């Protein structure tokens, strides 16, 4: 793992979506999808981002790439603040940062052959001749475990797992340094899911890739991540090294989340913390700590004050008044 300067530094990242009402589309409020996220990531590392639906994990991933324009904060990639770049500078920068989507069915153009889909990034960035592009396509397909002969087929001819391999090949086309994987295995069957996870492991090793792995499945995130960040309602709840987080979860939300995951072992005995109620709306988040409405350990201070983000153990941060 590379030492020294981090590859990616995210500071105070926020994304508020305006809520517009009425004939004149007045802004009547904001959905605070991401409400202040900070992290640093070194080259070759994987940061897992977990949380339930609506916690802002996908929006966070997309804001880093500026596919969604962040409302505030800095995204510093190799020393350059991505949020300050012009459109054309940003386009050049995107060669370094790619995205793999959840739904392999929806993210490939059904009218394009696999070769057309994989060559498009090279054409946009004017890389190589047609024949060298085709050569690249064939080697990429081979690298992600598909027969290079499939290059002229259409997406509908592939299974979900194969399409996700194509999605990964597309992300690799321009030799990026950072790949944001947004629920990359959520739509896949268990047996195929593990094939894709192993492929991601291998590619990271071979190309020294840095991953931000956004997912809701905790066992998958634990498997692939070096560090994990738990998000709740647009806020960071806890962050720690992968093993540490599962051994000693500090935030009551992390504890509840871990205890809720069904374990495929009928003998596994454990205390299950069943959270009451639903996720509050990010358009109208609770005062103080966003988790206090469902927290089994909520105190008076939790309703009034938002807990600060602090390092409680080495490399283990949490936002909770208990610590």
């Amino acid at each position: 793992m590379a030492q020294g300067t981090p590859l990616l530094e995210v500071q105070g990242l926020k994304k508020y979506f305006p809520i517009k009402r009425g004939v004149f589309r007045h802004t009547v409020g904001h959905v605070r999808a991401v409400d202040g996220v900070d992290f640093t990531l070194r080259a070759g590392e994987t940061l897992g981002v977990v949380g339930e639906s609506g916690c802002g994990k996908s929006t966070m991933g997309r804001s880093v790439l500026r596919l969604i324009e962040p409302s505030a904060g800095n995204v510093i990639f190799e020393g350059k603040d991505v949020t300050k770049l012009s459109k054309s500078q940003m386009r050049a920068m995107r060669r370094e940062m790619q995205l793999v989507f959840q739904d392999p069915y929806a993210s490939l153009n059904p009218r394009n052959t696999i070769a057309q889909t994989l060559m498009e990034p090279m054409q946009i960035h004017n890389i190589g001749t047609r024949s060298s592009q085709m050569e690249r396509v064939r080697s990429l397909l081979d690298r992600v475990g598909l027969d290079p002969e499939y290059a002229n087929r259409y997406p509908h001819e592939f299974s979900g797992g194969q399409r996700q391999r194509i999605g990964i090949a597309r992300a690799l086309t321009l030799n990026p340094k950072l790949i944001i994987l947004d629920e990359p295995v959520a739509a896949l069957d268990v047996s195929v899911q593990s094939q894709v996870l192993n492929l991601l492991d291998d590619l990271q090793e071979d190309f020294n890739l840095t991953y931000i792995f956004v997912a809701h499945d905790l066992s998958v995130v634990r498997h692939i991540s070096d560090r994990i960040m738990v998000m709740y309602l647009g806020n960071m709840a806890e962050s720690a090294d992968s093993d540490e987080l599962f051994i000693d979860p500090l935030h009551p939300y992390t504890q509840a989340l871990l205890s809720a995951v069904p374990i495929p072992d009928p003998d596994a005995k454990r205390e299950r913390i069943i959270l009451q109620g639903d996720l509050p709306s990010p358009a109208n988040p609770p005062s103080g700590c966003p988790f206090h409405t469902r927290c089994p350990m909520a105190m008076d201070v939790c309703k009034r004050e938002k807990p600060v983000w602090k390092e409680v153990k080495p490399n283990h941060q949490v936002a909770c008044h208990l610590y």
Partner: protein
Amino acid sequence: MSKVLESTDLQNVLEVKDLQIEFKVDEQYYKAVHGVNFHIAPGETLGLVGESGCGKSVTSMSIMRLLKDPTKVSGQIIYQGRDLLKLTENQMRQVRGNEIGMIFQEPMTSLNPVHKIGRQIGETLLLHRGMSASRARKESIEMLKRVGIPRAEQIVDEYPHQLSGGMRQRVMIAIAMACNPSLLIADEPTTALDVTIQAQILELMKQLAKENGTSILLITHDLGVVAETCDRVAVMYAGRIVEEGSVRKIFKNPQHPYTRGLLNSIPKLTGERKRLEPIEGNVPSLRNMPDGCRFAPRCPFAMDKCVAHNPELFEVEDGHRSRCFLQEGGQ
């Protein structure tokens, strides 16, 4: 509970025998379910596990007779001594929602968006119990309370879109349980929900089933959910049951290479993180089913005879069966 035990003490609530389901695609029939047999005892929860396309959902739909022409369903589906496949549509209507309840994966698409919650729960009560509208309403509120919905008196007059996913699934359970069915079919009931909400819903299903002595057929792809909720498990692959047994046997001593492969391929929450052992290849498509054992093309132990012949379900030990030549003649 005691009432159920008296009447059906020795009898299974449901017995599915040699179930075959064929779909018509481009003027040709393809078999999606191929000779499936299973039973559910009173108060028992049976998990039907498998990956997409293995036939688990269509099996559950065939029990409710929800598959329409040109789909062909044959075999026997014996519910409380009656073959459901032989009932008239009118008789079947008496069974659906009354004796057998069903909940689906997507609560938003299975609730009617233009009717209030109360009406949707009350509908089953009006239809099957002949209740008056006012009693049905009272009963609906009672059901909402039983499934843990706060402000039941107000929610009864709200529409599905006003509720969260977890709340909608609770409403679905309230509808399914309104007539106190002896069998509940739950098809991926928590797949669309977040883990903390999933934990609530599974807990609720377990508790209701225990209180009423309801048998459950739980269809899922999530082995964790199976381990935590089921008594027995049937693993399906490509239209056939490949292994069945008690939860303990299946998870502690899996026999079929597919079951073992599934268990090995899921990342663990505890212990050392190591490379996953996936099952190579893909699930075969309906149009292109391999001859012999359908798992043979992906099986690390495949022998010559696996390609040529389809193995029977061999008894490994009492109540634990595996469809694999490795277990031929017992252990």
